[in-house]
């Protein structure tokens, strides 16, 4: 019998697994997709938020705590995290006059910010329109690659003994003595504790132990532009009237510096509806264009993700002894993930003797794009696949593609984890060829989503 079974290898499940792997516990993660972070996590904006309203809510507290932990997490797990900062821009006199009040409100709640003159805003974001009034800078805002962040936590967990099963969907949960039998498409697992991190399907999982809740999917659409450096900060206009349900998106940037505009918030019926509509793209352009003198050049991609919404806040509870819900993790779930993991460890500490392992392994991911000449030479010397560039745009070698396959055997894992083929489609066929060569088949993200042949 396992000590803990985690349903879902999204960012929350992965961070809980990572944290648990530091203790003497037998932990297993089951995930219905073919790799980590391929559902809700993949579709998010990759923003590490500086704050979340309303202050005092669980999601707000965990956001602030998670944000403060992020540098140490990035260091420990080896994922890329850049505190690029967020500029709130006052586009009219009313929001300009509100800046001191906003700043005071933020400060009283422990969020640092810096007032920016109009000149300073224009200096920091040269493409912003000349008729803005001023701004407020939130230096703690940052960007990550959400799939990389998730995969690095899973990698750490695996290196420290956690078992992970992909293409493994939970079909039922039964009580057995003090623990549970979790039925999956890959067989039954017995576990003393079950942690429900099933994202959009957390309500289905919760219902299996008799807890009634409803997750509604809230779609967020994004546009990825090609022009790196269009803005080097997240840029958002201060709204006249804040929306209670969403922060409203912004002219964001990805961790690679490409402009990322969005997300919007659209209520959809289906938990698989990640379709991008023309009107949504036009709406995003219309909403964020007025901030700038011009649009960023070149469209690379559109994508939509789904937020799992269960009311207004996160739902983290233990409705049945030994069954913990980590559900309704909408924005800012990515930011909160490390803090959520700590909270769950706290909840488990009454159940298990949490004995820390003496030897904790810290696996590293090698990226050609981050190496200097000397390290490149050494890497190629040790493995000539590092000398074979597959994606020139993002400098990804064959060695990294092959390594990524160990983290999840599908096209989406390889692309999102290595960032190969994320600027154009030049290397897609080559990536597929390598995947087929190594694993015999090519699926996009889950069993039955075969890409070719």
């Amino acid at each position, binding site marked *: 019998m396992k000590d803990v079974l985690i349903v879902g290898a999204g960012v929350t499940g992965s961070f809980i697994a990572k944290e648990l792997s530091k203790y003497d516990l037998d932990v297993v993660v089951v995930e219905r997709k073919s790799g980590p972070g391929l559902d809700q996590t993949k579709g998010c904006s990759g923003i590490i938020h500086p704050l979340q309203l309303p202050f005092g809510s669980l999601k707000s507290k965990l956001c602030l705590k998670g944000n403060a932990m992020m540098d140490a997490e990035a260091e420990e797990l080896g994922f890329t995290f850049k505190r690029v900062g967020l500029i709130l821009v006052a586009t009219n006199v009313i929001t300009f006059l509100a800046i001191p009040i906003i700043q005071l409100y933020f400060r009283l709640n422990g969020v640092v910010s810096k007032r920016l003159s109009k000149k300073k805003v224009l200096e920091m974001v040269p493409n912003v329109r000349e008729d803005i009034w001023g701004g407020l800078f939130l230096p703690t805002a940052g960007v990550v690659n959400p799939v990389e962040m998730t995969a690095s936590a899973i990698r750490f967990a695996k290196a420290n003994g956690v078992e992970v099963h992909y293409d493994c969907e939970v079909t039922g949960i039964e009580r057995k003595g003090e623990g549970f039998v979790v039925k999956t498409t890959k067989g039954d697992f017995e576990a003393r504790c079950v942690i429900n991190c099933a994202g959009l399907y957390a309500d289905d999982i919760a219902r299996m132990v008799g807890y009634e809740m409803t997750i509604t999917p809230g779609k967020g659409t994004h*546009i*990825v532009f090609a022009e790196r450096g269009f803005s080097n900060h997240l840029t958002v206009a201060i709204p006249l009237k804040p929306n209670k349900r969403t922060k409203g998106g912004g002219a964001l940037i990805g961790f690679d510096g490409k402009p990322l505009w969005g997300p919007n918030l659209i209520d959809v019926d289906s938990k*698989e509806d*990640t*379709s*991008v*509509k*023309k009107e949504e*793209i036009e709406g995003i352009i219309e909403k964020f264009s007025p901030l700038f003198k011009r649009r960023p050049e*070149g*469209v*690379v*991609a*559109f*994508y939509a993700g789904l937020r799992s919404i269960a009311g207004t806040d996160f739902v983290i509870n233990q409705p049945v002894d030994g069954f913990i819900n980590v559900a309704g993790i909408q924005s800012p779930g990515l930011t909160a993930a490390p803090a959520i993991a700590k909270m769950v460890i706290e909840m488990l500490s009454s159940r298990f003797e949490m004995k820390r392992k003496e030897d904790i392994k810290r696996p590293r991911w090698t990226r050609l794009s981050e190496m200097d*000449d000397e390290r*490149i*030479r050494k890497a*190629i*010397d040790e493995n*000539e*696949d590092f*000398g*074979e*560039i597959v994606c*020139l*745009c993002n*400098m990804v070698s064959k060695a990294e593609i092959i390594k990524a396959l160990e983290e999840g055997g599908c*096209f989406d894992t390889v692309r999102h984890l290595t960032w190969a083929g994320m*600027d*154009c*489609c*030049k290397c*897609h*066929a*080559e990536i*597929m*060829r390598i995947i087929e060569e190594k694993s015999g088949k090519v*699926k*996009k993200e*889950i069993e*039955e*989503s*075969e*890409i*070719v*042949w």
Partner: protein
Amino acid sequence: MVVVVGAGYAGISVAEKLREKGVEAKVYDMRGKGGELAEFAKIDELKEYYAKYIEKVDESEVEVIKGCVVSTNPFKVISPQGLEVKKEDGFFICTGAVDLTPAASEIYGKRVAGIYTLETAIRLLAMGKRIGNKVLVVARKEEDILKPLERYLVEKDFEVEVLLSKEPAEVYGSRRVERVEIGGESVSCDALVVYGGRIPFNPKNLKGKLAGNVVECTYDYEKVEKNVQSIMF
């Protein structure tokens, strides 16, 4: 020494022309000789269509060094043999073109399996892979390569429909393309091949004389040829 980056048609032609002028250039390519012509050569109908260009590359005795040029100043090449850093005199950038992405070609809807740019589709077909069974090709502009490609697909028992249309398209499907809505019509298919045009492929922003398919980006090699001619004379 003069360096030619890219050993596709343009790169080989430039190197040949330089040789005629008594200049021996070093030609580098990250994948080897022929560029996308080497892919076309694996598909009978395209091999025939591009015959004179493919022959010229085949007949050329210009030696190609396999290596990925990542910068020109300083000159850096990465290959399985290692990393080379040195100084070279002049550069011809013949790195070719890349297709616009589906999003840039106004393809909306679900991002499921089975959506390919024309370029990716050709590369997969050249590997002998089946890209689906019922293929819809949406072309935003005319391109002559589509005709021999269509013949090839028909020959290989694909069901094919080629649509020349500027209407936005929307993809539907759960795990793979099931249908595409375009111009008020619904087309049932399991693969969507998109051609929205091409842009230069020079992600490392290599500096030098641009030649060939980097200048006017196309599948029409007459234009590539013209560009090489205009540069060399």
